[in-house]
Each structure stands twice: as structure tokens, then as C-alpha cells.
């Protein structure tokens, strides 16, 4: 809960901390969070399911977030997305059966003049072309 100075409105920081710790927010945690913050379970469930970042199931060992927004599209992002789906053998928004890699769309990383862009295990990567995609695929094969 680093950085939270004000005691109010701490649900999002708490959920971020839980996801950081456990990799996802298990449904079994929801009643405990609700009790700790004096909220209803429905409130907590509603928040967990509203935000794209919060996971209710574990992600793959590697997470590739590929930008799908307009600026990356203007730089060939759609073709890279198709190539990534084929090369990694995993559909957009899913995790591979062996739990190795999760491929997800993201809408803008703020690197709009150097796309197509991705966030690979939290590290930004720009100017993705066939060769760089190949390197990323090798990286997440580990």
C-alpha cells in the first residue's frame, strides 16, 4: 500500500497490491476485502470486474500486451497482431494452454510515433516488425 497517504478510497490500491502479490484476485478474497473495508461483496465484485487490469484467473508466465489503438494501426499494428496470434498460437485475450503466455490487447501505451508497440512483462517495446516479433516469441518461450 505504498504511496497511499489518505485513508479514503483505498479499494483500488488494495486490489492492485493483492494482484501484485498473488498475480490475480481470486474470488475467495472478495469477502475478506469487503469486510476489511466495510463494503458489500457486491461493491468489491463490481469493481474487480469493471477494470480491465484486474484478473480473476492467473495469467500466463509471460504477458504480452499488444497495442490496438489508431496510432499503432497507422503503423501496421493490425498485421503485427495477426502475426503475433499466429506465431504464439494463442488468440487475443487468452492464455496459451501450457500457461506460458497471455496475449492481450491494450489501447495506447503513449508511444504513438514509434509503433507498433507492446508491453512485454511490463517492459515497453517499440517498432515491432517481423524480426522483433520473432525475438519476443523466443523470449516468452522460456
Amino acid at each position, binding site marked *: 500500500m505504498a504511496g497511499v497517504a489518505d485513508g479514503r478510497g483505498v*479499494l*483500488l490500491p488494495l*486490489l492492485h497490491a493483492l494482484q501484485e502479490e498473488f498475480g490475480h484476485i481470486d474470488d475467495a478474497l472478495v469477502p475478506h476485502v469487503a469486510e476489511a473495508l466495510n463494503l458489500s461483496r457486491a461493491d468489491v465484485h463490481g469493481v474487480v470486474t469493471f477494470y480491465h*487490469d484486474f484478473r480473476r484467473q492467473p495469467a500466463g508466465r509471460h504477458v504480452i500486451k499488444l497495442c490496438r489503438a489508431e496510432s499503432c494501426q497507422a*503503423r501496421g499494428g493490425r498485421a503485427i497482431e495477426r502475426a503475433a496470434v499466429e506465431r504464439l498460437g494463442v488468440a487475443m485475450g487468452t492464455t496459451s494452454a501450457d500457461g506460458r503466455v497471455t496475449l492481450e490487447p491494450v489501447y*495506447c501505451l503513449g*508511444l504513438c*510515433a514509434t509503433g507498433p508497440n507492446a508491453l512485454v512483462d511490463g517492459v515497453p517495446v517499440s517498432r515491432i516488425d517481423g524480426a522483433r516479433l520473432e525475438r519476443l516469441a523466443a523470449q516468452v518461450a522460456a
Partner: protein
Amino acid sequence: MASVALGADEVAEAFARAGAEVVRTGSHGLFRIEPLVEVETADGRIGYGPVAPDEVGAVLDGSHANRIGKVADLSFFASQQRFTFSRCGVIDPIDLDDYAAHGGWAGLAAARALAPAAVVAMVRDSGLRGRGGAGFPTGIKWQTVLDTPGAEKFIVCNADEGDSGTFADRMLMEGDPYGLIEGMAIAAHAVGAGHGYIYIRSEYPFAVAVMREAIARSAAQVAPFTLEVRVGAGAYVCGEETALLDSIEGKRGQVRAKPPLPAIAGLFGKPTVINNVLSLAAVPFILANGAAAYAAVGFGRSRGTMPVQLAGNVRNGGLYEIGFGITLGELVEVIGGGTESGRPVRAVQVGGPLGAYFPPAMFHLPFDYESFATAGGLIGHAGITVFDDSVDMAKMARFAMEFCAVESCGKCTPCRIGSTRGVETVDRIIAGERIDDNIEILRDLCDTMKFGSLCALGGFTPYPVLSALDHFPEDFGGATALPVAAE
């Protein structure tokens, strides 16, 4: 983050191994030359870029082919008017001494020598309007908060920069975090607020880290005002100010109906100044140099400078800060240098995913709030995304509807249902089914979304859709062009 995405970490490590003293700065804002390395010499800082990790030796002995001389002398930078971004790329972002040596805290000192009402008057007289997109006069917003009684008031910085084609907030936070902190401290003095929040989207992990470090280091400078960072969780709609407030409060980020205005009943029901990063970061210049110095630059009712972001398929992609009034064509063709692919420019989208698409025939438009509104668009957060002639505008119209459907908060029907029906209708047009009838349905749907939605997500999605239809009818299969809606 941009230069890191292009390999700057590896370059920095290579220099450290070679025994050089390495200072990491933010970005100057011309991505074609990144990773950029500047070497301190007797003649000043000499730039080289882009630089690869195995080229360190060539930089150190001055033989590197990509020697560009002093960065500020490049025409891309020499032709700018950098009010807000004057320190970005120049200073070590979290070095307090560096910040002070480059004019930092002068605005806050000037503000604290004045009564709150006088600070608000200066911001009003500068003509500063909200840089997040809505363009509402900042001074009037502050005046409302100042005039609203309340034992507790808040300053909230909207750093949920979710628009594709925009990155100025990220660059400012990563490259000059104290500039934002100083702006927020001035706002706090002006309205009587004790605590502030910077709400940063989770897609910007570097900005989160830099801002947290900068807040900790500058606590003494801004005291008794206190600040903290809150991180979003991947919801575009949280860039909408009332949804952002709900998100800080720990709720689903759904928009609130206005009134009440956040200035009167905002965060936790208290009077709240909520401004974009660029609005707040413009304030120290105004206090330090005077309202007239800021207002002297600009065009019509759009005063001061705008950090324009050139994005997409553009040769000189980056950040270009200039007074309002430069034409769209100058920005795209002259400053931006046209497309990176070398093919002709076909369309530019201005103002993010909710902004209109314009053809080169409209490049005479002056870049200011009113001109773009008159032409059926908006300048928004001043992101310009360039597309070459390979773009399919029907697909871009479909994408606009799809994005709205993915990101809708669900609170109002026109946005929640309308966007999904919009995707289906564009799909039928693309498939060639009763094209003219479906275009009529699509226009009708856009009308409902525009006037029936609670916030800009549903209300502005019609801009990209209708502008694509109006300016690029040939991509929708035989429909005839209709005159541009006078809006």
C-alpha cells in the same frame, strides 16, 4: 519510456561499462533520433542519435555518423515555443537542484506572495483553457472552487491520458515531474486546498515511478500541501473527470451526471479542482512570467501554447509545442515531414479516438479550439495521428464504434447499446448490405449517441464515424458525400 522502448537501457549500460558518467533525462520529443545521447563538451551538449549499444565508442571519440550537434539547434526544436516543456529532456527529472537551476519554483514563490484571488485572476487573464480536451477556462474553474465554502478542498490531476496519438502527459511526468507538482501547489494555494491526487493510468508505469519519487523528494517545497499518486486499472472512461473521481473514491469508474460540478461537489463530495497534466504544468510559467506573456501567444480565443503530439505514420513523430494558430497542414507536412512510409497522407485524426478524421483538403484549418469545432471536429488533447493512403476509413469507423463498446462504462444507454449496434451497422455496410439504408441508420445512431450520452465517450464517438463517412464516402461503397455538418 519511449526511448527505453527503443533500447535506451542497453545504451546506458554500455556507456556505464565504458566508464562514462550517465545522467538519464526525459525525452526532448523527437523520436526519430532516439535513443539520443548528449555528450557534455566545452562547446555545450552535443547530440548523437539514434545510438545503438555497440556504437558507444564512436560516440565517445566523436566519430559517430549520427552526430546531430546541439539538439536545440535542430529546426524541429528551434521553431518551437516551449513554455511548458522547456525543461523536458534538458534536466535530470528528479534532481531538485537541476530543477531550481532551470527556473523551478519561481512560479510557486510568486503565487505565495499573492492573495489566492490574485493568483486565480492571473490564471484567468492568461487565457489558459483546459488542455485535456474540453477547453474550459481554467481561471473560471478555479474561481468557482475558491468561492465555494468548504473546510476541505482537493486538487486532482487527470493523468489518465488514454487517447491514442497523445503522449504529452507521459513525457511531462517522466521528464519534468516537479513542473506538474509546482502547478498543483500553485492551484492549492489559489483555492485553499490541502491535499492533491495525481491519477495516472496503469499503462504508464514509468510515469508512476517518477512521480512517486518526485513527490517524496519535494515534500518540503510544497508543504503544507500534500500529494499522492493513484493508479488506474485499465479503463479509458476514467479519463472522463467524474468517472476519474469515482475511481479515486474506490468505485467503478462510471460518469456522474452534472450538476453538481466537481468544483462545487467533487472528490468525496468536496470542492475540487480537476485539471489535466498540461493545464497544471502551464501554470508555473504564467505565475513566473506574468499572464500577459502567456496570453501574448496564440490565436483568437485560444491563448498560449499547445504541446502538439505528432503520431502514427509520420516521419518526425514527437512533441511540438507551439502557439495556437499554426495550420494543420504545416504541422503534418512541414513539421511532421509527411508520412514515414513515404506514401501520400490520406487522413489525419485529431484529438484521439473521439476526434474527427480530416483529409488533406482541410489542412488549411488553423489549430485552435474554435476552428476545429466549426469544422466538425475537436483538438482534444492535441494528438495528431497520421495515416497514409493504405488506410481503409470504413474500418476506422468500425474501430471507433468497437472501442466505444469495449470501453463504455455502461451507465447510459446510447453509449452502451449504441456502440454495439454501431459496430453491427458498419459491418453490414462493409459487407455491402443495403448500403444507403444502413448509412442512414448509422447517422441516426450517431445523432442519438451524440445528444443522448452522459459523457464524451458516447457523445464524441460520432466524430470519427461521421467524419469518415463525410470525407471518405468512397470507402463505404458507393455512398455519396454529404456536406460537412455545421457543428
